[in-house]
């Protein structure tokens, strides 16, 4: 058989494997992925090694197929030996590095007896003060918190839980599918997040496929980042949930100074979401019709800028200290949510308010540089 014959055989098995996976028949899919991987590796053995682009494409394909068949040791060995012995194009080296990271994560979790839900997402922060492999700690901590909040909100949405206005997710949700963070392949500053698989069988009920958590999460962030109102409406029919996701997504938008780009992509999905400084206006445009009008009495709105020094969501107020040192108390935090506002404490914020003679009423809050 020629390399092309082996490759054609691999293609057929891979297509069939994807079909099984789509129907939820994961065992059958893994068997076919393994057969496809073996055929692709045979194609790689047979191909003329001076055809470096063909070799590069086949190498990535074979390693990806071994990874999808969950044969992590074989996938790792092939990736490492190929990078050492073959002349690969840079795109292939980058893909293999990303695959190796995913392989190491999956195999270390398997050794520890921890199962993750499918759909690990990689978050990449770049530009501004961020360099390859290093970033300001407070920036990363804040983004990790927001992504964790969005994952919990996605689980709650899929389970049909009413929008949580105050406090953390219920312990049953936190314990069942806690997000885990992993180091990720080099390039900007990257980390990966995946949800631990719930120990309770059928945690999501019969109507929700657990695989949907990561893909729904990605759909939500992608639609939010690109101002795709219809896409967001499809992913999140409930208006309050939709507004919540948009506010959380807005917390991921780069300020353009400390960092300029945040990208979220999934290892098992073709889609990705990219946040740039321009995403803020797109998100605000989508958010505007979803937030309630400021005040029935028609008071003028204004924006207060300063540091968020105190929040008491149960008593419905927050305090902002302006540059002049003056403290302003803002009340009526009906639309403020713990996980949106929490990461902003002690940071510069812009609070949109409606001011009357008696009080300053809350409309919206955004983090500032």
């Amino acid at each position, binding site marked *: 058989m020629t390399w092309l014959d082996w490759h054609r055989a691999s293609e057929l098995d891979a297509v069939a494997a994807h079909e099984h996976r789509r129907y939820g028949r994961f065992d059958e899919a893994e068997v076919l992925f393994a057969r496809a991987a073996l055929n692709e590796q045979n194609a790689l053995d047979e191909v003329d090694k001076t055809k470096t682009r063909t070799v590069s494409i*086949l190498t990535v394909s074979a390693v990806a197929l071994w990874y999808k068949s969950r044969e992590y040791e074989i996938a790792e060995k092939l990736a490492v030996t190929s990078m050492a012995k073959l002349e690969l194009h840079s795109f292939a080296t980058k893909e293999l590095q990303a695959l190796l990271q995913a392989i190491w994560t999956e195999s270390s979790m398997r050794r520890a007896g921890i199962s993750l839900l499918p759909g690990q997402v990689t978050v990449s922060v770049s530009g501004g003060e961020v360099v390859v492999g290093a970033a300001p700690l407070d920036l990363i901590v804040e983004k990790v918190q927001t992504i964790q909040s969005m994952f919990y909100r996605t689980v709650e949405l899929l389970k049909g839980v009413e929008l949580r206005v105050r406090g953390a997710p219920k312990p049953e949700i936190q314990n069942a599918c806690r997000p885990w963070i992993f180091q990720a392949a080099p390039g900007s500053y990257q980390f990966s997040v995946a949800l631990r698989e719930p120990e309770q069988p059928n945690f999501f009920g019969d109507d929700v496929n657990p695989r949907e958590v990561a893909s729904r999460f990605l759909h939500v962030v992608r639609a939010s980042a690109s101002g795709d109102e219809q896409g967001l409406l499809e992913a999140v029919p409930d208006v309050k949930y939709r507004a919540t996701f948009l506010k959380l997504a807005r917390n991921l938008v780069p300020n353009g100074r400390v960092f300029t780009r945040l990208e979220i992509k999934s290892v098992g999905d073709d889609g*990705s979401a990219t946040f740039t400084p321009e995403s803020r206006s797109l998100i605000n445009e989508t958010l505007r019709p979803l937030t309630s009008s400021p005040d029935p009495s028609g008071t003028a709105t204004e924006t207060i800028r300063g540091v968020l020094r105190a929040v008491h969501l149960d008593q419905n107020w927050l305090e902002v200290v302006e540059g002049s040192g003056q403290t302003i108390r803002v009340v009526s935090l009906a639309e403020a949510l713990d996980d949106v506002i929490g990461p902003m404490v002690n940071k510069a914020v812009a609070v949109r308010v409606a001011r009357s003679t008696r009080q300053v009423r809350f409309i919206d809050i955004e983090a500032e540089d």
Partner: protein
Amino acid sequence: MCLSRHHITPVKIVIRQGEESEERELAWIAADPGLVAAWANQIDTTEAAAYCVTLASVEDQRQLVAIGRTETGSGADYLLAPAGSPIEYFEDVVRLEVSGTDSGTHAVLQNRLTEKIKQAREAEDSPAIAAVVGFKILTVLIADVTDT
């Protein structure tokens, strides 16, 4: 399924490449309940349908056909070559980067195309075509990655 959500067969679809655009008729067989159940995941369905419409569009506009499908960590890549040309190796093939949106506006489509071009440029310094399909607005945007 993606077209049936918004339209009744047949429809006119616009294929736009830069400033130039052409209309083509697009017809399909309505999905039966079994097919609808099998393709319940809208994200997967939109992606598969976008590949289908794009492959037809690039064949019509560029006379390029899919000659291979290879796996990546994030799904699979389609490789294109001139129709009827013999396949010896993948040295000169054109990679296809596709995205689809069910209800996105023209602005969303343009935004996706820019993103796809950027992704393709970052991935590999070789010929590639980026395409995005809007099912509600019946538009396909196609761009060469190397010369845009």
